[in-house]
């Protein structure tokens, strides 16, 4: 099997603080990490490779040169080859433009790596939280998709995958033929860690860069800020709740009684 995993470098949103005076996001000192959902996608690919060691895992990211860090991390976990898509003209792209550029990158990588049987993505990145790039990439490439994958296995005749999908209130097993695109959410297990040996190899890895001139046939009206249908008008920090009521009566029973009374006044129960 030949699997492409799309990853993104994101700020660790759990470390982000709000400036209490200016009400802006404080990003200084916030570590950059591999988007956790992309880690789940990589783990799903690694599990397929565990069963079928001939599997090749290629990772790609689009971002500034420093995003190479997450490619190295992916190499040290499970990937065999990595590509960086990075160009000045790609900056400012929204999800539609980003997915279009990535679709061009897929075609380009396939010239070297062969056709990908499956493309795996995280269901969403934890900075933008849009969950759009995966399905949009699938559309540009004309591939069938399964989103919200938890786990997957190759089907009996090896012609596709059976994906356990998290639905709205239940899970489903979905059958899909190669080539296809699957996005992954959090499974019930933790992804594997990098090994020292792989880390050392990842540091020495040659990571090709697909830059502005890598795609001679790209439609430049569909990339960058100008090629993006959506524009951010404003950003602001959400209002913080303040001054909730703390109930601390003599006993737990009394506290419960008071709470029910207060909720009753608010017509919540």
């Amino acid at each position: 099997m030949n699997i492409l995993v799309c990853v993104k470098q994101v700020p660790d949103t759990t470390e982000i603080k709000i400036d209490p005076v200016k009400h802006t996001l404080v990003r200084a000192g916030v570590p950059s990490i591999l988007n956790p959902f992309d880690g789940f996608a990589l783990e799903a690919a690694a599990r397929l490779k565990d069963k079928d060691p001939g599997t090749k895992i290629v990772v790609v990211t689009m971002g500034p040169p420093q995003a190479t860090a997450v490619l190295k991390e992916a190499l040290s976990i499970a990937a065999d080859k990595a590509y960086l898509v990075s160009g000045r003209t790609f900056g400012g792209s929204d999800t539609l433009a980003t997915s279009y550029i990535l679709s061009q990158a897929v075609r380009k990588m396939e010239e070297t790596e062969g056709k990908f049987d499956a493309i795996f993505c995280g269901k969403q990145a934890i900075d933008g939280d849009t969950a759009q790039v995966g399905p949009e990439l699938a559309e540009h490439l004309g591939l069938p998709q399964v989103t919200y994958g938890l786990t997957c296995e190759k089907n009996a005749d090896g012609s596709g995958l059976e994906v356990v999908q998290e639905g709205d209130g239940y899970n489903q097993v979905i059958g899909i033929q190669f080539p296809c695109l699957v996005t992954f959410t959090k499974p019930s297990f933790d992804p594997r860690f990098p090994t020292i040996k792989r880390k050392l190899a990842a540091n020495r890895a040659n990571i090709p860069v697909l830059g502005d001139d890598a795609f001679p046939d790209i439609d430049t009206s569909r990339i960058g800020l100008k090629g993006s249908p959506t524009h951010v008008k404003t950003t602001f920090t959400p209002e913080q709740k303040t001054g909730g009521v703390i109930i601390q009566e003599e006993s737990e029973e009394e506290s419960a009684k008071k709470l029910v009374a207060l909720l009753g006044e608010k017509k919540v129960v």
Partner: protein
Amino acid sequence: MEAKTKDLWVLIETREDGSPAKVGLELLNPGRILADKQGGRLVAVVIGQNVQKSVEEAAKYGADQVLVVEGSEYQQYTTDAYQLAMVYLVEKYAPTTVMIGATNIGRDLAPRVTAKVGTGLTADCTSVDIDEESGNIAWTRPAFGGNLMATILCPDHRPQFGTVRPGVFKKPEAGESHADIIKEEFHVANDQIRTRIIDVIREAAGEIVDLEGAEIIVSGGRGVGGPEGFETVIKPLADVLGGVVGASRAAVDSGWIAHSHQVGQTGKTVAPKLYIACGISGAIQHLAGMSGSKVIVAINKDPDANIFRVADYGIVGDLFKVLPALTEEIRKKKGE
């Protein structure tokens, strides 16, 4: 593409039995306001099988027109069948705005439609309005795990698409139906549907964990101490309230309860009327998934727990004493 009308569309997601998912009806509420401001009609789009009930409800809750695509190929959701049907409708009628509920299905479908049509999509909005300056829809959504809100416009492409979180809006008041019902014959061949549902896995005894649609959620965290705690104190309170059991990442990672119950950044984002957090410290990942709840109650032993910062009401105490007392009080109140 250019819009042919000033109409605003709301996709009414249907269930397997043809009934509407709640979020579609909720969106008719802001849909009405925005359609009036745009000077167009409010159109409900219903795709499914045996959808009479969805059509009636959409009409009852204020749609001026209901577009219906019916067929056995739509009984269960598949990306391909629904995408083809939506793209067909959008290209035929070219509305100016389309709103879809930000459910797993909505978030699977919407980007697939917009990428095909070549227009902009704003995901997971918590507020929608008209941008006074430009007349575009102003889609407002959280990003960075809820730390930042962004307002997004789609100025030069139509239709402008957005998915909107369930539970943000209330269903509109029901009224006399005045809707034109338009049936569209559009069918998708079997071989155009490239995925196959092999199995549906429901929780024990067919229980469905519908956190996103729940009006009341009672969630347990590390303080619940184990799977027994969920059975003995969390579930009884959820049951008496008619609510759904949620959980923090800590409880799920400890294996006390299935991930389908998880609320937070790597779980579900919820906005119920009432969220009761029990033994949950309030890590930012958890807050990101529930801070949009209307009323938040926190019960925790630790008076300095972060969860109290977002709580409307907090009880500092032992949840194993507070919850049974609370369950009993509510049972009494309901009995009145």
